[in-house]
């Protein structure tokens, strides 16, 4: 009896102290009994229904497990979220067992619950970590079937469970030849490889996969965890970058222009074959060895140091391997990042040696042509004088025959005039011929124009001609023969004055302009004088002729002018219409100007 009592007491203690919450529910969902642990967790239970205790609601739960147990009499084991007496939710593993009476009728359901909130939280946390890791994670079994896949896998590749990894990742129907998971299964080692798959929309995905053994069965690998990093963007960027680099290489290698570039430290990093062809430095002595300042032309460095804009030098010189100066046209710039930080310098240049030689040949040809025209003109000028002399002699003879003193006198005058003409013609012609080597020096091209204005100001004022000037100031010095250009401009101004004097214009005017545009130095003389007819225009440069009447002018002025202009590599052009006036324009391209002699060529 005492033993029985001890057993009952013990059973009661166990009932209350076992770390499991025990409860008994009848068919009306009433909690009819519960142990102390239950009461401690879920609070007072007497007279309450299970849903009131567990969930603090007033109606039976949908899919009530207790009701199911009453119905089928099976034991149950499941995890459920319940609220404790404070209303805090938690996870509980619950076992339900039907309690039968003597006639096997289920009268009550006995429940036991264990708090697994912490464990569930751990699992959730792991799952959350798994889902939020920025890489694809799958666990696969020996048959390559996916056991677990994280969110990124599901989102990227679509359906995952009940699929083979090759189906999910690659949309194929059999194991890949280079499957890293297979290697992990076989050798028990971790394997890495670069793989390409297709996402659920069929777009290519490139990923770096690491397959490691996950669980073992005995000494065999049972499952493998595959972790893959999506490098699609990186991969394509790298591919693109590679293509750009290849393209640049092709451009650099095939460019006909020399290209040299240096980095922020001024070390040469690019020196293309065209640059080598021009400069002849071997590649190995330049790239990584030389500095930009050793290679780039000095005028380029000076310009680039002055400002940040790209520099274009129509005429520069670069020294080759042997120190020889090569004429080049160059464009170059500092290379900058968007934030303005200098990352290097680059120059593109074209060898002008051939062009220079051709230009010189053309200039020589033009000069020869000028000589030819001069000789043709010379014979014509002599013809004119000859006719004057012949005529004079004839008139004198005729006067003697007729005994007409006045006629004799007129004839003599004619002879005298033409002898004077020979004299001045010879002087001018000698000047024309002698001045064949212009003395070139660096001068202000505008200063010459100003000299001319001073020279002709009085003459124009006396003739009632309005003499206007339009001069551009601050033009850079240019290589010119000052005497020659002076002669040219004097000739043109003097012609313009004559043209004004020959016309009936009420307000005779000469406009003398000087300006530089795009490397072309330009002198322009415009008059509103008599202008010229088509046939005069056609001939003014091609022969020694003058419209200035007897005794005035030799017809050498414009020819001399043109010769000097041609010697400066320039051209002279004009427009003219009778009664309106003429415009003469001398254009000297800086690129074609002669080179100043360092020393005067004194005999």
């Amino acid at each position, binding site marked *: 009896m005492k033993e029985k009592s001890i057993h009952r007491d013990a059973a009661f203690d166990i009932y209350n102290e076992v770390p499991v919450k025990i409860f008994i529910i009848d068919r009306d969902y009433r909690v009819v009994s519960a142990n102390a642990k239950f009461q401690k967790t879920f609070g007072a239970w007497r007279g309450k229904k299970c849903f009131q205790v567990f969930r603090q609601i007033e109606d039976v739960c949908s899919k009530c497990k207790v009701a199911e147990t009453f119905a089928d009499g099976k034991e149950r084991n499941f995890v459920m979220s319940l609220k404790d007496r404070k209303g805090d939710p938690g996870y509980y593993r619950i076992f339900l067992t039907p309690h039968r009476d003597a006639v096997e009728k289920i009268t009550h359901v006995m429940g036991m619950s264990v708090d697994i909130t912490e464990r569930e939280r751990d699992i959730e946390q792991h799952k959350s970590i798994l889902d939020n890791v920025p890489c694809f994670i799958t666990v696969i079994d020996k048959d390559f079937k996916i056991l677990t896949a994280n969110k990124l896998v599901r989102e990227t590749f679509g359906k995952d469970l009940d699929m083979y990894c090759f189906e999910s990742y690659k949309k194929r129907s059999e194991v890949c030849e280079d499957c890293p998971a297979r290697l992990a299964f076989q050798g028990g080692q971790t394997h890495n490889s670069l793989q390409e798959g297709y996402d659920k929309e069929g777009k290519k995905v490139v990923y770096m996969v690491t397959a490691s053994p996950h669980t073992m069965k005995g000494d065999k690998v049972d499952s493998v965890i595959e972790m893959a990093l999506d490098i699609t963007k990186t991969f394509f960027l790298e591919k693109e970058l590679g293509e750009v680099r290849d393209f640049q290489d092709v451009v650099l290698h095939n460019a006909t222009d020399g290209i040299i570039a240096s980095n922020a430290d001024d070390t040469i990093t690019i020196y293309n074959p065209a640059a080598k062809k021009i400069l002849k430095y071997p590649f190995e002595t330049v790239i990584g060895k030389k500095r930009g300042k050793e290679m780039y032309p000095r005028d380029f460095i000076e310009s680039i140091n002055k400002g940040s804009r790209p520099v274009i030098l129509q005429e520069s010189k670069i020294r080759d391997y042997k120190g020889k100066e090569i004429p080049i046209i160059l464009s170059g710039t500092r290379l900058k990042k968007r934030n303005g930080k200098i990352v290097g310098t680059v120059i593109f240049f074209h060898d002008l040696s051939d062009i220079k030689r051709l230009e010189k040949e053309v200039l020589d040809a033009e000069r020869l042509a000028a000589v030819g025209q001069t000789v043709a003109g010379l014979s014509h000028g002599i013809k*004119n004088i000859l*006719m004057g002399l012949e005529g004079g002699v004839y008139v004198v003879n*005729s006067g003697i025959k007729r005994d007409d003193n006045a006629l004799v006198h007129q004839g003599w005058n004619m002879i005298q005039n033409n002898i004077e003409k020979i004299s001045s013609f010879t002087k001018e012609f000698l000047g024309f011929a002698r001045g064949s080597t212009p003395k070139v020096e660096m001068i202000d091209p505008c200063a010459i124009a100003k000299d001319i204005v001073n020279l002709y100001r009085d003459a124009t004022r006396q003739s009632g001609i309005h003499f206007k000037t339009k001069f551009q100031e601050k033009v850079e010095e240019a290589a010119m023969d000052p005497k020659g250009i002076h002669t040219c401009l004097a000739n043109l101004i003097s012609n313009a004055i004559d043209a004004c004097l020959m016309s009936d214009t009420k307000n005779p005017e000469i406009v003398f302009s000087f300006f530089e545009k795009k490397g072309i130095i330009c002198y322009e003389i415009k008059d509103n004088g*008599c202008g010229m007819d088509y*046939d005069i225009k056609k001939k003014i440069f091609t*022969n020694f002729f003058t419209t200035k*009447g007897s005794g005035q002018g030799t017809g050498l002025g414009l020819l001399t002018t043109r010769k000097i202009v041609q010697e400066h590599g320039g051209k002279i052009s004009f427009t003219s219409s009778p009664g309106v006036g003429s415009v003469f324009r001398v254009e000297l391209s800086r690129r074609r100007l002669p080179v100043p002699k360092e020393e005067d060529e004194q005999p």
Partner: protein
Amino acid sequence: MCYGLQVMKKILIIDDELDVVLYLKTVLEDHNYETRAAYDADSGMKAALEYMPDLIFLDIVMPKKSGISFYKELKEHRCLRDIPVAVISGVGNAYGLRGSTFRNLIPDSNITAPQGFFEKPLDIDALIKFLDGVLDHSKL
């Protein structure tokens, strides 16, 4: 008009160069031609209308208006267009005004080319022979 006396043929010289005018004038007078001179195209036109010459010697390159312009005006003038013209060219063969060169300068096909072309220095014998031919002057 007097019978028995042959009327002297009248020649108008248009040239801006005084030397040329004096030379031609003397030569023509020595060969019994009556002459008059004008020193530019406009006064030449005026003189032509007043003087009604039998022939005109015409310089091409003159200030203000060229001989070409004058020739065109002359040929378009009802009273003057039949007057024969001899061109004196001071500027070489290119201005010989023969054939196509003339047509380039005066595209109007109604205008006939000048009868004579003379270059400086003048070949006097050829010039006189030309005048005799054109003006039938040899009988004087």
